[in-house]
């Protein structure tokens, strides 16, 4: 190998190393893919594709949660906290399916019996029932577990457009126990949790990245699209554009006290205590 070639190889390797370091630093600003709130523990959870954090002070301080090997090489798509069961947490993502931790993220167990594959892209916990969960597998449909993920049952094919993100709400008026709202590539889709009929929730003719609702007033539903941020005060019939952070919102959750948390595509976490009239950037 000539000196020139050695030099070029050296420069090349140095560049790769530089990019790797820069990439690692940029990892701190990786897109936020999911937010959820454990009401029992008053804990906020934040997920990036390969990282999971919790905050016990509404986003001021964060603790990183170690992830099991099955998540490595895959990407987290959803995080859900069990209603009324403190420290019971679920993770979902394509490749590893559904994982459950009953000790606040110290130990994780796969919970995929009854799912057709581990390609779970959306997961939601029932708003009131501690052991009821909903999962979505593209091309296969929506599944329900009523035993904290131990077994899953196929419910239906899901909305025609597919599901990118899913929440369960205890909004009144359901034949059963609540409602499912799905972020889809063409608006928000809504169904009673009997899976009787998926319908368009109003007209939001845009890809929806995130959907959430205000637990103090369940008819208040928030939806983030590439085109903006919207609030419905009638369960998803009419949508009004509201203010949003500078970056595209990719994850949403509203705390029991009504604070709106928004994770963004550039990795930022924002919160609003006045129903999205103003925003404060948090360190996350």
């Amino acid at each position: 190998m000539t000196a020139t070639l050695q030099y070029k190889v050296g420069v090349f390797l140095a560049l790769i190393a530089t990019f790797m370091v820069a990439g690692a630093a940029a990892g701190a600003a990786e897109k936020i893919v999911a937010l959820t709130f454990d009401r029992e523990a008053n804990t906020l959870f934040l997920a990036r594709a390969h990282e999971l954090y919790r905050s016990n002070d509404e986003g001021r301080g964060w603790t990183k949660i170690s992830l099991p090997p099955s998540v490595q090489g895959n990407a987290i798509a959803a995080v859900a906290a069990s209603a009324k069961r403190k420290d019971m947490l679920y993770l979902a993502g394509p490749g590893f399916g559904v994982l459950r931790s009953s000790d606040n993220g110290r130990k994780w167990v796969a919970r995929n019996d009854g799912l057709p594959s581990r390609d779970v892209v959306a997961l939601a916990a029932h708003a009131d029932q501690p052991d009821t969960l909903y999962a979505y597998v593209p091309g296969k449909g929506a599944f329900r577990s009523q035993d904290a993920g131990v077994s899953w049952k196929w419910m239906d094919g899901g909305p025609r457009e597919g599901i990118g993100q899913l929440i369960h709400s205890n909004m009144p008026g359901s034949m059963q126990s609540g409602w499912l709202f799905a972020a889809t590539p063409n608006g928000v889709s809504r169904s009673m949790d009997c899976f009787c009929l998926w319908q368009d929730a109003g007209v939001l003719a845009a890809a929806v990245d995130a959907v959430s609702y205000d637990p103090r007033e369940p008819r208040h539903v928030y939806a983030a699209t590439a085109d903006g941020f919207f609030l419905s005060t009638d369960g998803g019939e009419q949508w009004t554009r509201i203010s949003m952070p500078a970056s595209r919102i990719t994850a949403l959750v509203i705390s029991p006290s009504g604070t709106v948390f928004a994770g963004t595509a550039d990795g930022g976490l924002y919160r609003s205590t006045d129903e999205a009239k103003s925003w404060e950037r948090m360190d996350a």
Partner: protein
Amino acid sequence: MRSVLLGGAIGLFAAITAVRAGDDAPTAIDSELAASGRAVYRQHCADCHGARGEGARAWRQRDAHGELPAPPHDSQGHTWRHSDPMLDRIVAQGWRDPFNKTERLSMPAFAGTLTPQEIRSIIAYLKTLWTPEQRQFQREESQRQSLSPAAR
């Protein structure tokens, strides 16, 4: 007309027999109750939900009042997703779709018209319209609700 009725009766008997013969006990149906339920259904339900439980046309589409037309009760609908207590309650008390733009019930209440036994008979008849898998699902839903009052 007589031959049509006779054919219908034979069909119902065959369906119920098939239900009883083809399924395990868990999804068996009370054939006598279902037969009487069919008559009650035809008198009180068929106008909206169809003579064979096929539902109204375009039942997935809201009308100008925001109301959803009567859904099917057969295997194409979603009735089989509801437990016995829930079906009983919906028939007796009615139900209003919260996105209905009118104040009227989407499903009228029949408690003043039908006896509890007649409502049970209609539900038994509807079960003859479902697949064995749907009957199994519905039976499990009914069991779960009877075990968990909080889930009702």
